[in-house]
């Protein structure tokens, strides 16, 4: 597969690889994809009281463009608001990385991972508030 320099750069020097404490209240974890399909992305976001994404980490099993898409999306969301992150769509990722058509699903996966991580964070926050309200 002939990839753009940007994919190769993100693949060879992936940004923000690692894990955050998945049990922490301020961390949302998104796990998307499936081993049988050849790609699984885990994206974790640390979100503060003001709804700002303070940190983002990923681990990805997948091809070069899946790893590059994950790496890029962590850079895109870091320091941004949750609303901004929710507005990211796969076309932005695909265009930035100049992904070939056969690899567009990698960018879709990255978008899904962001949304899944934020959903997990919101679910945790709701669960935490519930007892207080009672």
């Amino acid at each position, binding site marked *: *597969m002939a990839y753009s320099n940007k994919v*190769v750069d993100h*693949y060879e020097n*992936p940004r923000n*690889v690692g*894990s955050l404490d998945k049990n922490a209240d301020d961390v949302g974890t998104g*796990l*998307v*994809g*499936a*081993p*049988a*399909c*050849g*790609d*699984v*992305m*885990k994206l974790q976001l640390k979100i503060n009281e003001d709804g700002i994404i303070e940190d983002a980490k990923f*681990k*990805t*099993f*997948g*091809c*070069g463009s*899946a*790893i590059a898409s994950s790496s890029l999306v962590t850079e895109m969301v870091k320091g941004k608001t949750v609303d901004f992150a929710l507005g990211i769509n796969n076309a932005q990722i695909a265009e930035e990385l100049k992904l070939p058509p*056969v690899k567009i*699903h990698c960018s*879709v*996966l990255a978008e*899904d991972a962001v949304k899944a991580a934020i959903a997990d964070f919101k679910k945790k926050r709701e669960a935490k508030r519930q007892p207080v309200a009672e």
Partner: protein
Amino acid sequence: MSVQLPIYLDNHATTRIDPRVLEAMMPYLTDVFGNAGSRNHSFGWKAQAGVERAREQVASLIGADAKEIVFTSGATESDNLALFGVARFYKDKGRHIVTALTEHKAILDSCHALEKEGFEVTYLPVDKDGSVSPEAVAAALRDDTILVSLMWANNEVGTVNDIAGIGKICRERGVFFHSDAVQGIGKMPFDVAAMNVDLVSISAHKMYGPKGIGALYVRRGRPRIRLEPLVFGGGQERGLRSGTAAVHQIVGLGAACAVAQQGLAEGESDRIRALRDRLWDGLRANLDELYLNGSWERRLPGNLNVSFAFCEGEAMMMAIKDLAVSSGSACTSASLEPSYVLRAMGVDVELAHTSIRFGVGRFNTEAEIDYAVKLVTEKVGWLREMSPLAEMVKEGIDLKSIEWAAH
């Protein structure tokens, strides 16, 4: 000892032309340019002498007679000629063909096309090693079976079929037997008489010869095989394959066969097998969660096909870009489906995505193998660090217990 990068370890895809082969070909690209069909001057005679010498060299490597060798443009054409040629010639005798799910696309696609012409094809399953047993072939034969086509050595996993056992059954039952033998010819001894094979596909570029040339062995003795040709014209190759002989290519194929025959006698296969074993031993010593695909005992000397759990194949090939290898991963195919050969063997689809095929060949060295072991070890470690699956397994999570969303 230093190595030159990148290192070529994809010798099932194609091979470098041996300098001895190139040397034999060169005069036929310059001074000896005649048409082998020109019967009335020395230019033609010299070209024809080159072609006939090559025919003998090919025949000698497989224990055949020179008259039984038909030159083609390569193994794909040889496979097509064998299947369509036999099927169309003998269609009144029967319309059933037996092959296997793990055959090369040149066989499978030909079979699909023959089905449209009214033939019935049985695609035999394979065992976990990727082989078809003579018993399975025997059970699939019917009264109207005219041809069995099964490869000698598989191009992905290197598994070697029991061709002699299958040949014996086909002969007893009076069914013609074709074998696509491109991966094994010149690397292991092959004998058409002892193995009872009636048609054999051969490719030059898989055995250190040029691309664009191959041969089909067509038995003339008992039984004599007749074929309906695919290419019509001047009636070259006894009418089986019209077209002006590609003299320099044919000479290259012949030389490649002669060099291979000498190599077999001198134990070249043992040297290549030792390099392959060194690669596998090195990887196993350094890494866990490695899964060998295919049979270890019945395997091409230069083949190693391994699944590196948690490391997707295409990402792996990018990581080890100083090594030229291939992968059964979906991401390397246009269809986004992992290798149909691995799937037919029952390899877990997850592991199929992580498979890498190493093809060790004549020109590889110990230093190159050691470099490969070091590089693969390092990069597998790096990819596993980045893999959420490796992390989950480390935490004691059973990956099969998770409800993954297919996409």
